[in-house]
């Protein structure tokens, strides 16, 4: 149980830290990549919490497709936040 708690805390930090970075940074491309990283950590967290169904969806949509959609949207608009 101690190991489980430790892994859950580490993964929670790996979800929270990129999320804060994504809010704070002015570079939207870096923010999108940070969100993708947070989604990947969240997918592993779901797997540790015994929800493999959600983990597969989160890994494919969060880390893959959402990132691509963000990058395409930034390409059509502007990269730097004013």
């Amino acid at each position: 149980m101690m190991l489980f708690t430790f892994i859950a805390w580490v993964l929670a930090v790996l979800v929270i830290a990129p999320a804060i970075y994504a809010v704070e940074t002015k570079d939207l491309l870096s923010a999108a990549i940070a969100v993708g990283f947070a989604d990947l950590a969240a997918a592993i967290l779901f797997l540790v919490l015994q929800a493999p169904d959600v983990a597969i969806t989160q890994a494919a949509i969060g880390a893959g497709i959402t990132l691509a959609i963000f990058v395409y949207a930034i390409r059509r608009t502007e990269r730097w936040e004013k």
Partner: protein
Amino acid sequence: MKKALAAVISIAIFIVLSYFFLTGSAPIDYLKGGNYTDPITGEQYNHSVPQQYVEDTKNDTGASNVVTAIVVEYRGFDTLGEVTVLFTAATGLALLLDELKRRTLPVVDPNFILKSAVKVVLPFIILVGAYIFIHGHLTPGGGFPGGAVIAAGFLLMILVHTTRGLPERKLSITESLAGISYVLIGLLGLVFANEFLQNYLPLGNFTMLFSAGIIPLIYIAIGFKVGSELGGIMHNLKGVHEE
């Protein structure tokens, strides 16, 4: 100053909530209380709904994946609503981007490593996606995850073929056929079993591929629909490249 305060407050809320979540002491305790045995810790609770699903799923639906049984069988109408939401989002995006799509963007030639790697990896990604949604009633997964994995394969295709893109027409035909077949399967339930989306096929042998009645059919339809829909969204966002 304000930002630092907000960060401190949100981190404090996170620590408090995660403490309750990890120790399982305070706010979620009232949900539990006699005949439910937690499969991990072995504790007994008086929380009958999960126990009910775990016990009845085998006889009611014949699916060995309880999550799938709840999503497609017990709450099938909600899933139809979810598919409709995704369809509406894709249609709205296509309408919004119709004009923007014709604007030309500079073409960047993909490098050699990406081109050769995609040739090797793409069939396997499509295969894994198909496996996930065909075996949705047996193993973790289902129509939405499988369709998303296939759409990730489409993304690789878009990245490699910078000028051609995806066959948009074929994608929309696939999507429409899959949506129509989902509704038709539900309507046949209305004919044979007196309820919309009710199971009317034999349940088959438990844990075999041909089991669980209409669940595999519905998940195959959803897998095709989600895959082609997400692929179409990315194709629309990418736009047309002209030399």
